[in-house]
């Protein structure tokens, strides 16, 4: 049986609403949630989530304006958060983020922000595949857009996913919900990927296998004995 994980629930700011969201997530069938916030999730929240059968992780979303800001921010947050996502708002940042092994998830604006839209192009996807960065599809991008914009968002996401699949970049899907009303069940999030040309199994993997892999890999990295992938200190060997 699949274990579903939503790696992008935005911190609503109020603990009461957050608890409501955790309860709803449990009811909807999620086994794991990552809260996107400026500060790591406190242990009390994790304990509360565990009683509901949810594994809580903390995520940070970086919005650097240039590559220097990105490097500084990564140095500051990498050891504090389980998931690090970078919003690529210009091409230089997107290239640097795609190259950096400390970045877990790449997100792109769904619509044009300036003269042209920064997207996951083939070169960026190739770099992301080498550094094991995942591309994120957020349901909130579609929910927050008007009916007219939705068509454009779908075209843009489809193009990005085509590049991601071609270069072997893992694609993950999440809700991006900041309120309980914006939360959807895992299969609904997976079904959105059907609009983007992803097969049913890959769509379900995008809300289960891929986020779980990212979470497990990063938790292993955050363990005290970790040296580098595949190498860790073992107590009592020397």
């Amino acid at each position: 049986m699949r274990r579903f994980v939503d790696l992008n629930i935005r911190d609503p700011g109020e603990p009461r609403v957050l608890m409501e969201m955790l309860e709803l997530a449990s009811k909807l069938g999620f086994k794991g949630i990552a809260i996107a916030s400026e500060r790591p999730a406190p242990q009390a929240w994790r304990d509360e989530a565990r009683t509901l059968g949810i594994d809580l992780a903390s995520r940070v979303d970086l919005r650097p304006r240039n590559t220097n800001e990105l490097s500084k921010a990564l140095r500051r947050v990498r050891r504090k958060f389980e998931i690090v996502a970078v919003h690529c708002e210009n091409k230089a940042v997107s290239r640097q983020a795609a190259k950096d092994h400390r970045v877990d998830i790449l997100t792109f604006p769904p619509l044009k922000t300036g003269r042209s839209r920064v997207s996951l192009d083939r070169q960026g996807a190739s770099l992301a595949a080498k550094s094991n960065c995942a591309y994120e599809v957020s349901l909130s991008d579609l929910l927050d857009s008007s009916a007219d914009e939705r068509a454009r968002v779908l075209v843009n996401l489809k193009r990005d996913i085509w590049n991601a699949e071609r270069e072997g970049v893992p694609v993950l899907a999440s809700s991006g919900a900041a309120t309980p009303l914006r939360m959807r069940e895992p299969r609904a999030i997976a079904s959105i990927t059907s609009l983007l040309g992803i097969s049913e199994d890959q769509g379900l993997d995008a809300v289960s296998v891929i986020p779980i892999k990212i979470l497990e890999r990063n938790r292993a990295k955050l363990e005290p004995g970790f040296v580098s992938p595949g190498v860790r200190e073992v107590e009592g060997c020397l």
Partner: protein
Amino acid sequence: MPVRGTGRRYLAISLDGGDAYSEQEVSDALYQAVRELFGYFGVSGLQPRLIEYDEETRKGIVRCSRSHTREMRAALALITEISNNDAAVRVTGASGTIKSLKANAASK
């Protein structure tokens, strides 16, 4: 000679947010969501239909073409308002017959 009918899928839905909605309002929202996402041609392919809706429990059953179940789920997921009120439609179960859908819902 028996003729095989078109395959259908029944989805149990549950509404969240806003006021109490009438069956007509939910049905309209359902059609509108499919039409906005897939167009009139899509409506003919998905064949969406609200089979029943209980205003008190805010639960209902939606029927669609079996080969388009994923698209139907996507259209339902993208409903954000019903009659100008914020709302969410969530699928709580899916089955090939109304009988087994209700039996599954009762056993949960």
